[in-house]
C-alpha cells in the first residue's frame, strides 16, 4: 500500500476516534455539572481539561475567563481551532476524501454525511442542548465503526485503520483516567484518592464501562477497582490492555524491514499490562504510571510515522 494512503487511513480513524472520545469526555463533564458544585471547582476542572487538550491558552485568548457554556461550545462547535469536535470531524473527512478509493463506499458515505451534518450544528442549535450533540457524535462514531467492521476487507488498509483507532483510544482512556485523579500531591493509595464516588461512576459511564463494572465486580464502585478495570481488563473494549493488544497485533500484521523495534516496544508495553498487577504498576503512583504510559504511546506514534507513513520532513 502507498505510504501516503496508510497515513491518511491512520489519521482518518484517529480523528473519528478522537471525536468520539472528546464527546465522551464532554459527556462526563456535562453529567458531572448536573450535580451540585462549588463554582471554583468547576473552573478548576475545566482548566485541567482544556490544559490536557492543549487548548487552554486558545480558549483564554478567545473567551477570557472560564465559563462552562462557552467552554462546551468552544470544544464542540468552534471551527477556528483544530481541537473542536467539528474540526476533528472535518479532518476525518479530508483524510477519507484523500483515500476514498481505498475505503469502501459505505465508509466514505458515512464519514461524508457525518461532516455534512456536523456543519449544520451551531452553538445553541439543538433543542436538547449540547447533550444531544454529544450523543449524535457517539452515534456517528458507532455507525462508522460498524460500517468499517462490516464492509472493509481485512487487508493492510484495515490494519492501519485499526492501528490509528487503538492508539488514539489508549491515549484517551489514559487521559480521562488521569484527569479523574486529584492533581495535588500523590496520595498514598488510590482508594484514598477521592471520596467523590459519583465522579468515578461518571467516568465509567462515559467509557461505556458501568454495566461491565457491575458484571465484573458485583460490588460497590471504588477508585481502585475502576482503575484496575480501565487499565488491566483483557476484554473491556476501551481498557489500556485491550487497546495495546490490538495495537501490537496490528503492528505485527503490517511489519516491514524497519519496524522491528517499534513492534518490540509495543509488545513490551502490552506484556506489562498483560502480566502486571495494578499495585506493582502503580507502586510509584497511579499518576506517574499514566504519565509514563502516555509518553511511551507517544514514542510509538512517532515510530509508526517513521516506519510506515509519510516520514516528517521528507
Amino acid at each position, binding site marked *: *500500500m*502507498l*505510504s501516503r494512503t*496508510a497515513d491518511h487511513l491512520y489519521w482518518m480513524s484517529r480523528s473519528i476516534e478522537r471525536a468520539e472520545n472528546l464527546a465522551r469526555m464532554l459527556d462526563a463533564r456535562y453529567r458531572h455539572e448536573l450535580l451540585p458544585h462549588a463554582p471554583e471547582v468547576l473552573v478548576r476542572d475545566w482548566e485541567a481539561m482544556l490544559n490536557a487538550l492543549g487548548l487552554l491558552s486558545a480558549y483564554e485568548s478567545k473567551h477570557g475567563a472560564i465559563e462552562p457554556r462557552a467552554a462546551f461550545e468552544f470544544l464542540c462547535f468552534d471551527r477556528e481551532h483544530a481541537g473542536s469536535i467539528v474540526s476533528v470531524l472535518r479532518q476525518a473527512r479530508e483524510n477519507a476524501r*484523500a483515500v*476514498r*478509493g481505498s475505503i469502501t*463506499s459505505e465508509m466514505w458515505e458515512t464519514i461524508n454525511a457525518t461532516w455534512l451534518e456536523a456543519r449544520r450544528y451551531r452553538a445553541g442549535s439543538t433543542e436538547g442542548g449540547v447533550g444531544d450533540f454529544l450523543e449524535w457524535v457517539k452515534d456517528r462514531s458507532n455507525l462508522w465503526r460498524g460500517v468499517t467492521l462490516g464492509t472493509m476487507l481485512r487487508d493492510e488498509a484495515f490494519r492501519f485503520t485499526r492501528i490509528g483507532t487503538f492508539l488514539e483510544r489508549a491515549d484517551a482512556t489514559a487521559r480521562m483516567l488521569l484527569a479523574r485523579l486529584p492533581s495535588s500531591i500523590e496520595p498514598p493509595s488510590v482508594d484514598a484518592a477521592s471520596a467523590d464516588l459519583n465522579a468515578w461512576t461518571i467516568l465509567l459511564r462515559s467509557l461505556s464501562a458501568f454495566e461491565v463494572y457491575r458484571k465484573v465486580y458485583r460490588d460497590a464502585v471504588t477508585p481502585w477497582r475502576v482503575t484496575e478495570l480501565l487499565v488491566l481488563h483483557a476484554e473491556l473494549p476501551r481498557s489500556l490492555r485491550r487497546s495495546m493488544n490490538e495495537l501490537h497485533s496490528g503492528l505485527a500484521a503490517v511489519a516491514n*524491514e524497519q519496524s522491528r523495534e517499534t513492534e518490540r516496544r509495543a509488545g513490551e508495553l502490552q506484556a506489562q499490562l498483560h502480566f502486571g498487577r495494578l499495585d506493582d504498576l502503580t507502586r510509584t503512583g497511579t499518576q506517574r504510571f499514566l504519565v509514563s504510559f502516555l509518553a511511551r504511546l507517544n514514542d510509538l506514534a512517532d515510530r509508526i510515522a517513521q516506519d510506515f*507513513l509519510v516520514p516528517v520532513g521528507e
Partner: protein
Amino acid sequence: MVRLWGDMGAAFNEMQLPDGSYRPHYARYAEWLAEQAEERLSRKRAEADSLFHRVGITFAIDGEHEGMERLIPFDVMPRVVPIDEWRALEKGLKQRVRALNAFIHDIYHEQDILRAKRVPAEQVLGNAQYRPEMQGIEVPGGIYAHVAGIDVVRSDSGGFHVLEDNLRVPSGVSYMLENRKMMMRLFPELFARHSIAPVEQYPDQLLENLRSVAPIGVDAPTVVLLTPGAQNSAYFEHAFLAQQMGIELVEGQDLFVHDDAVYMRTTRGPRRVDVIYRRLDDDFLDPLAFRPDSMLGVPGLLSVYRAGRVTVANAIGTGVADDKSIYPYVPDMIRFYLGEEPLIANVPTWILRRPDDCEYVLANLAKLVVKEVHGAGGYGMLIGPAATRAELDEFRARIRARPESYVAQPTIALSTCPTFVEASLAPRHVDLRPFVLSGADITIVPGGLTRVALREGSLVVNSSQGGGTKDTWVLNT
C-alpha cells in the same frame, strides 16, 4: 400528469416530432411520463441531489475554499439514442480516433502528412502542444490517445457533427457511470420497461486496455492512476476510477525514478510501476523536462518513458491533435491515413489565419461562434448572436491583433432534450461525449455523457459554466 412546454425554434428535438407526437424510441418513456405526477419527479430530483451530496460526487471550483464542492446538476430525464443511430455513430467515432492516432504517430515520426501539405507544417511544429521530446519515440502498440472523449452535437438537420476532440485527459466518464446508477435507483421500473444497453463494463475495459499497453516483457503489469490531488476539480473521478479498477491512486509525491524505472513508495518499500494512467497535463508531468515549478509530477519520468520502461496513457504530446487549430484538418486526416470518407462531419470552420476566412468572419461576427484555438472549458469564446455590441467590438479587435489564435463556426442550434427546470419540463440544448478506448481494439461503451445547458437558450454545456448532465440510453428496440 407532466406537461411539456417551451419552444426552441428550429432546433432538432430529441424526443418530439414537430407535430408534437413522440419519436418512436421515446414512445414508451412518454407513456410512463404521462402516468407520473409532477410532484413525484420533483421529489426524485431532490432525492438525487441529496444522494449525490452524500456520495460526494462533486467537483471543486478553482478558487473556492476547501470542503466547498459543488454538484454538477443532474437531470432525471434521460437522453435516448436508438440503437441503429448509435451503431452509425460508433462506426464514425472509431474511424475518427483511428485516424487521430495515426496522425499523432506520423507527426512524431515521418511527418508524411506535412510533406504532403495536407496539414500546414507550421500549424503543427509551431504548436505549443507539439512535444519535440516525442520525436522518434516508439510507444506500445503505436497508440497515443488511449482514452478519447469526442464531443458530438446534432444540428437542426438531425445529423451528428463532431464539435471537438479531447485527447489529453478527457473527463466526465464517472458521471456517465454514476448517472446510470442513480437512474436505476430512482426509477427501476423504467429499466424493466426498456432494453437499455449497459455501461458498467467501462472500468474493466479501461483496465484491460491499460494492461495491454504495458512495456514489452512485462507480464503482470502494475497500473496506477496519477492524479494532481484532492484539490483538482476532477478528483472525484480519479478516485472513483482507481477504485473501480482496483489500482492505486497516486500523486506525484508517491512516485520516484530510480535506475531508469518508476517506483511508488509503499508501506513495504518501493514497488515498480509499469503503466501510468495520468490525469495530469503534459506540462506538469516531469519538472525536469517540462514546467520546472511543477510540484505535481515525477522528476525523471520522461527519460524512463522515452526508454520504453514505463507507459504513460494518454501518451505525451497528444494535445497537438486536439487543438482547435488542427480540428479543421481531421476529415483530411481520415482521407489521408485510412483512404475513407469521414462518416461523421466536422462543424464547418473558418480558419482565421486565412485572410479570406478572416474577412468573412469579421463581416459576419454577430452570426458566428468564435473560439480561441488553445481555449478549453468554454472560456475564451464569443457567441455572436448572444453578444453585446461592446463584446463584438472587443472580439473584433482581438481577432485583428492575432487572427491565428482564432477559428469561427456557424452558430449551431444544438438539438434539445426535455429537461427538468425550475418551473416544469422544458427543452434544453444538449451535446454528447462518448468515450473511445484504444488498445488492441477500439471499444466504446454505448452512450456517453450527455451534457445539457440548463439556462434557457444557452448553448454552453460545460460544467464550469452552469451545465448539467443526463443519463444517456442506447435503446435496443
